[in-house]
């Protein structure tokens, strides 16, 4: 119903083009940029596969709040922070390998649930502007996170490993090495096909998550979330606890983001204690939007298409910038510009479209009444 005016376009090709304008635009952009960059297709394929494994989980964590009508959850950084806290404890306890990763997730989960509960409660007080609130809330909790890590850890919260602590005796170092768990999930089960290594382990985890999301939409709770997402008032009249449903969607999203960040970091191999989570929300959201999602509708295909296009842009932009303008730095800025710009454009288009739709609806309703009355007087 949200995309009504679009689906009314007569030509199916035009309709397809309009509703997928963003991905198509990026494909065109890449058609020019990829040859310019001069990367080999093997390299690109390898990179894309790595990045799909690395980012999918985080991007999928955005889907459920969209379903519940809370827009794009910039608050997944909360989950990312919870994941990082889990990893810090894992490092401190000296647990390595897959048990380490799972342990980090176990530790991160309750933190993510609490943060999700907080975020959900706050967003329920800011209905209608969830996105801006979740974004600022992310900044705010980032402050609390930094406070905890920088002053609490090693003083109040027991952290014993000197490898983690700053020389002054409390506070966690800036960069932490994740060598002990680096790529353990990726290497758990991976095959190589003509020079392209495919981390089947991670992909099967992602597949399991996709199945979960799919299954979830078919549960009572999933149905309730869809109802709440479309019309809170009607859902409340039917006896659905709207606030609780919304909070649950945020909690699920936060917990998934916590897992997602752990998967992401085990692939990268290091944590920037104070920065790794900063851009998680922005990049995940930009990727999802480039995949053709909107504030009100996001699907699993959007996730994979989006990550592929977004990261392909990310990889080739610096090199293409260098070839084109002689400065790799331009490409760096270009990709930042793309991620912010795409969010700005998508949000603006969405808000605009909603206004236009309201207007069209009004006009159509009026035309219908007019016609009905004229029929009545004529007959």
């Amino acid at each position: 119903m949200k995309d009504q005016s679009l689906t009314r376009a007569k030509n199916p090709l035009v309709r397809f083009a309009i509703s997928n304008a963003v991905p198509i635009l990026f494909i065109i952009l890449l058609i020019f940029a990829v040859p310019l960059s001069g990367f080999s297709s093997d390299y690109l394929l390898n990179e894309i596969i790595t990045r799909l494994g690395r980012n999918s989980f985080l991007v999928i964590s955005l889907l459920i709040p969209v379903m519940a009508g809370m827009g794009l959850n910039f608050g997944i950084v909360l989950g990312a922070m919870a994941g990082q806290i889990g990893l810090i404890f894992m490092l401190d306890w000296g647990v390595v390998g897959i048990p380490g990763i799972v342990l980090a997730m176990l530790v991160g989960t309750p933190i993510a649930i609490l943060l999700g509960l907080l975020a959900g409660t706050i967003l329920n007080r800011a209905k209608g502007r969830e996105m801006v609130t979740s974004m600022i809330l992310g900044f705010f909790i980032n402050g609390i996170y930094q406070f905890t890590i920088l002053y609490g850890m090693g003083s109040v919260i027991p952290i014993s490993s000197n490898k983690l602590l700053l020389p002054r005796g409390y506070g966690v170092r800036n960069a932490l090495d994740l060598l002990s768990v680096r790529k353990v999930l990726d290497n758990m089960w991976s095959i190589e096909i003509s020079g392209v290594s495919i981390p089947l382990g991670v992909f099967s985890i992602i597949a399991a998550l996709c199945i979960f999301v799919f299954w979830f939409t078919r549960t009572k709770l999933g149905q309730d979330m869809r109802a709440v997402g479309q019309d809170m008032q009607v859902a409340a009249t039917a006896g659905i606890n709207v606030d609780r449903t919304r909070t649950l969607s945020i909690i699920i999203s936060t917990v998934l983001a916590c897992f997602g960040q752990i998967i992401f970091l085990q692939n990268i191999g290091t944590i920037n204690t104070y920065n790794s989570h900063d851009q998680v929300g922005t990049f995940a959201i930009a990727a999802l939007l480039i995949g053709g999602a909107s504030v009100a509708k996001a699907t699993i295909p959007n996730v994979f298409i989006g990550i592929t296009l977004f990261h392909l842009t990310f990889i080739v932009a610096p090199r293409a910038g260098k070839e084109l303008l002689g400065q790799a730095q331009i490409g760096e800025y270009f990709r930042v510009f793309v991620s912010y710009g795409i969010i700005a454009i998508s949000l603006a288009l969405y808000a605009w479209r909603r206004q236009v739709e309201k207007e069209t609806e009004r006009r159509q309703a009026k035309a219908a009444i007019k016609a009905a009355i004229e029929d009545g007087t004529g007959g």
Partner: protein
Amino acid sequence: MFESIGKLIEKAGWPRIIIALFLLSMFAIAPFVNISIGTSISDTIVRFAMNSVLVLSLVPMVQSGCGLNFGMQLGVIAGLIGAVTSIELGVTGLAGFLTAIGIAIPFAAILGFFYGLLLNRVKGDEMVVATYVGFSSVAFMSMMWLLLPYKSPNMIWGYGGSGLRTTISVEGYWLGVLNNFLSVRIGNFFLPTGTILFFALIALLVWSFFKTKLGTAMTAAGSNPVYAKAAGVNVDRMRILSVVISTVIAAVGILVYEQSFGFIQLYMAPLLMAFPAVAALLLGGASVSKASMGNVIIGAFLFQGILTMTPSVMNNLIKSDMSEVIRIIVSNGMIVYALTRKMKVRK
């Protein structure tokens, strides 16, 4: 008695009281940890003066109902263009500063106009769209700083010979042109009279604008758009006008900031510029839909006071610099608080 205190608290809001008490306690502790109150106050005033115009720039948009201008970076960018261009032209002193303003204003007005058009299309979602418009414009300008053909050796990278530096000193051009005008210096105490006067002038202009027919219409458009429409006010036009004014003042604001700070910061530096200013305004008692000159002055003072006092006091107390973390918590906490407060007119 208790009732009136309760009322006062309700009116001021808990966060504001906590922060004011926090600041007071900082000033109270300061002498015990060997920090001179005079220096502290002087620092606070200098920072207040340099930030005040930026905070002020938010007011027109709040008043016209466009919400908090998280896209302030647009104005900042216009200001930066003015700044680097005036240095490129080699104009120094007050003339240089005025040149920068003169160049910045038309840019700001044009950017503001289109920004206003956009915001009119996304009513209800202004703030989140504005944030990302601001972010992406900063990233876009980062590319431009590399590409634009500026030549002054004071500004471009030493090697390579093209592209502006990340930080450009304004020393020798217009460092402190306002700060030092009629300034008072008694020992450690420094009063940047010129900057304060300049802020007062702009504040007076904005205040008097809101006393005119047009300004009154703008307030009404923000306060109740339907009422304004019923009284024959073109609400959309008022909103665009307010965005243009906000953007222009922000452009001037960043120049005031730079003449005091001493450097022009390019590339990603302006990215988060809007948030402290917004937080300061909210701290001063403004809401998402209403702001006054009083809010600007109180807010900028409280906010800068905390930023100045916490590092020095905390440093002496626990030998560690917590100012960054406190800044993050206070500014974003303030914004979250304001966003979750119930709005009266909104449906």
